């Protein structure tokens, strides 16, 4: 099935009904009649999107969706391919399936994510796969791959799963992380791993470490090869030198358990 934006929303459009799981089994007419929230008004999905084709587990979206929030909420399977930019809360609470965005996404990609994968070909906003405000436990499984850059707080409170950023990340990458893995192939902002208890953050560029992190050694971690080869398969550009290179290992945050690690490519 394909949804093509024919009328741009004037104010934010909350369209959590749009996702391969929630549209499964519905006809074009039924999908067009679904309710979306245009600011404080309820309107029919068909007021904004042209719906074509049958739902067979694969949903395509086309258009500038930079005012459209909550796409793919709670999806548990299937595929959603988006040609265009999207607004916030993409794939919130998803437990399975795959979202590909050929464009940029705004804040809160993969909030409360439990499984499945999200691939952003462009850039992502703040709080990629980050724990919601006030809670301790963030993303609990799945993968988020951002080919471009992301902003602050990527992987905050991460419990399980993989977040990979092809470009740069902002401040507080892996903040209060509990476990899991974060890869940033470009540069990270400041205060990486602040408050982290366990887990691994890997970057290919030098980074400023907080004073509560301490240098432990430089070594060649074998497990990184598997990860990096996997990221290469997903389409991220991986330098061969990274596969066999040495990495500085920093551990912290010493205010917490001091069992987290940050690996920085050295040579």
């Amino acid at each position: 099935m394909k949804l093509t934006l024919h009328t741009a929303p004037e104010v934010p459009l909350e369209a959590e009904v749009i996702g391969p799981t929630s549209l499964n089994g519905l006809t074009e007419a039924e999908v067009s009649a679904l309710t979306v929230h245009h600011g404080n008004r309820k309107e029919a999905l068909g007021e904004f999107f042209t719906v074509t084709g049958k739902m067979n587990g694969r949903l395509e979206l086309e258009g500038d969706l930079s005012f459209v929030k909550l796409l793919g909420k709670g999806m548990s399977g299937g595929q959603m391919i988006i040609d265009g930019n999207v607004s916030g809360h993409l794939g919130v609470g998803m437990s399975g399936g795959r979202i590909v965005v050929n464009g940029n996404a705004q804040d809160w990609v993969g909030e409360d994510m439990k499984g499945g994968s999200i691939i952003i070909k462009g850039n992502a906003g703040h709080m990629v796969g980050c724990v919601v405000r006030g809670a301790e436990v963030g993303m609990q499984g799945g993968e988020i791959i951002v080919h471009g850059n992301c902003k602050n707080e990527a992987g905050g409170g991460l419990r399980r799963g993989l977040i990979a950023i092809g470009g740069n990340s902002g401040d507080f990458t892996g903040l209060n992380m509990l476990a899991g893995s974060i890869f940033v192939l470009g540069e990270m902002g400041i205060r990486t791993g602040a408050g982290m208890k366990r887990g691994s953050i890997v970057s290919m560029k030098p980074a400023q470490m907080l004073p509560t992190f301490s240098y432990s050694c430089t070594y060649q971690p074998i497990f990184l090869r598997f990860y990096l080869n996997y990221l290469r398969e997903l389409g991220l550009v991986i330098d061969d030198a990274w596969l066999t290179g040495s990495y500085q290992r920093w551990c912290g945050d010493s205010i917490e358990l001091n069992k987290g690690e940050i690996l920085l490519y050295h040579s």
Partner: protein
Amino acid sequence: MSSTLRIVNGKVYDPANDIDGQVRDVCILDGKIVDSVPEDAPTIDAHGMVVMPGGVDIHCHIAGSKVNLARKFQPEDHRYDPHPGTEYTRSGSGGVVPSTFATGYRYATMGYTTAMEAAVPPLSARHVLEELEDTPIIDKGYYVLMGNNSMLHQLLEKGRMEEFREAVAWWVKATKAYTIKLVNPGADEMWKGKKNANITALDQKIHAFDLTPRKVIKALIDVANDLGLPHPAHIHCNNLGHSGNYETTLETMRTAEGRRVHITHIQFHSYGGEVGKNPVSAARAISDFVNDNPNISADVGQVMFGKSVSMTADAPLAWMLRHVKERKWINADTECESGCGIIPFEYQQHVYTHTLQWAIGLELFLMAKDPWRMVLSTDHPNGGSFLNYPRLIRLLMDRDFRNQEATRVNQKAIGKTSLPDLTREYSMQEIAIVTRAGPARLLGLKNKGHLGVGADADITIYDEMDNKEEMFNAARFVIKDGHLFIKNHEFCADHSGRIFHIAPEYDKSIENEIRSFFDDYYSVQFDNYPVSDTHVHNTEVIANIPVT
């Protein structure tokens, strides 16, 4: 404008008037229960339903500065439980500490029409009153914290008992409170002044004062009785949550020397064992004492499994819980008056202590000989949300359900209690006592908790069902002050409810002394402290009881 209503064909449970399930009419005129109404009055056919007075919660934390801090710092709790508005009602957010509107509507949905906020420092009286005004449908009031008041401590250590009594009366009146509340008396001075220490015994010296908790407790129990407050001193004993604390609880009850006193969330104060080690149940000892002493009343403070928030004026308690698991924590000191601690918590079935607490609460219910004096509470949200009441009622009424639940919990803990041997099942009438008639009588609210002529027409009508949790979860009809506002489970009107307070008389000359204390030690002006009569609307003064 007169409004009439007749409820027919329902099974009426009105323990205060010895009506136990008889089918009879209930008539309403202008917000009150009356003998009869004209033949053509509108009727509600309650066939197959149970008619009871509206529920009365004697102890919960639903409004005021600490409740609001607990709301403010838990967005993660509200976000998954929004409370949409309707044509008639405001929206809000739920979770363990709901917004004021959601609190009122959710209580009402369960058939509760009165609830008392249990602990507010006098300095934030205006705040709690404003929140209570924004808590719809239900009637409400609040208890003012007096057990750690520096000025009162000073009067007491000098033995100036008359001035002490006048000062207490001034404070209660100035803050429009409903009664005197004590929380871990004497502990705040240790907490704030002695680097986070705590009180551990009734005869321990309170830091910086020539005074002991026992003297504070005795004096405030006496003042409440001497002033004839409709509800006596409401006491959260020392040593809450500590193994072996039941002895402190017994000592506190003995301190009353036969005078009226209410011990709140007594479950949390019924632990045997040694300090610092695992607790065991001391429900039998506590229950025996309460059973034998008619001057004592209590609410249980049942623990229910799941999410809770420890939210208390007992700051050292929250600090202790922070060491159980390091998580976000609030402490809030109020000058010269109180402490406060807040910490999110979760009671888990597999944990020894949590199971033990759950079982002790049930033991206390099932061992109580006089349900009028051992009433229902979860110390919302400390033992669990008030939304757990229907489930708690089922645990009390349905032995099979209780036994089945007991198989899911920590068996080592259950083995140390007498719960498996307690076969009692609460009757519908006893439920009406512990959720309505009992708390209303303990509060001295003569027009609440019963359906006799002259009572407030606060009435709940439930579908009679085998599953008591489902039955008490959502009343089919709820009537408040004679107005129907829940009809077939849906809101059909809104209502603002009243704020109850007391206004004891006092000798005006005490004001000079308090004023001078304020000038030295408070950060607000004495003249700006008392709450004016126009500050909130819909207030009602409840008269003192004659002192004999």
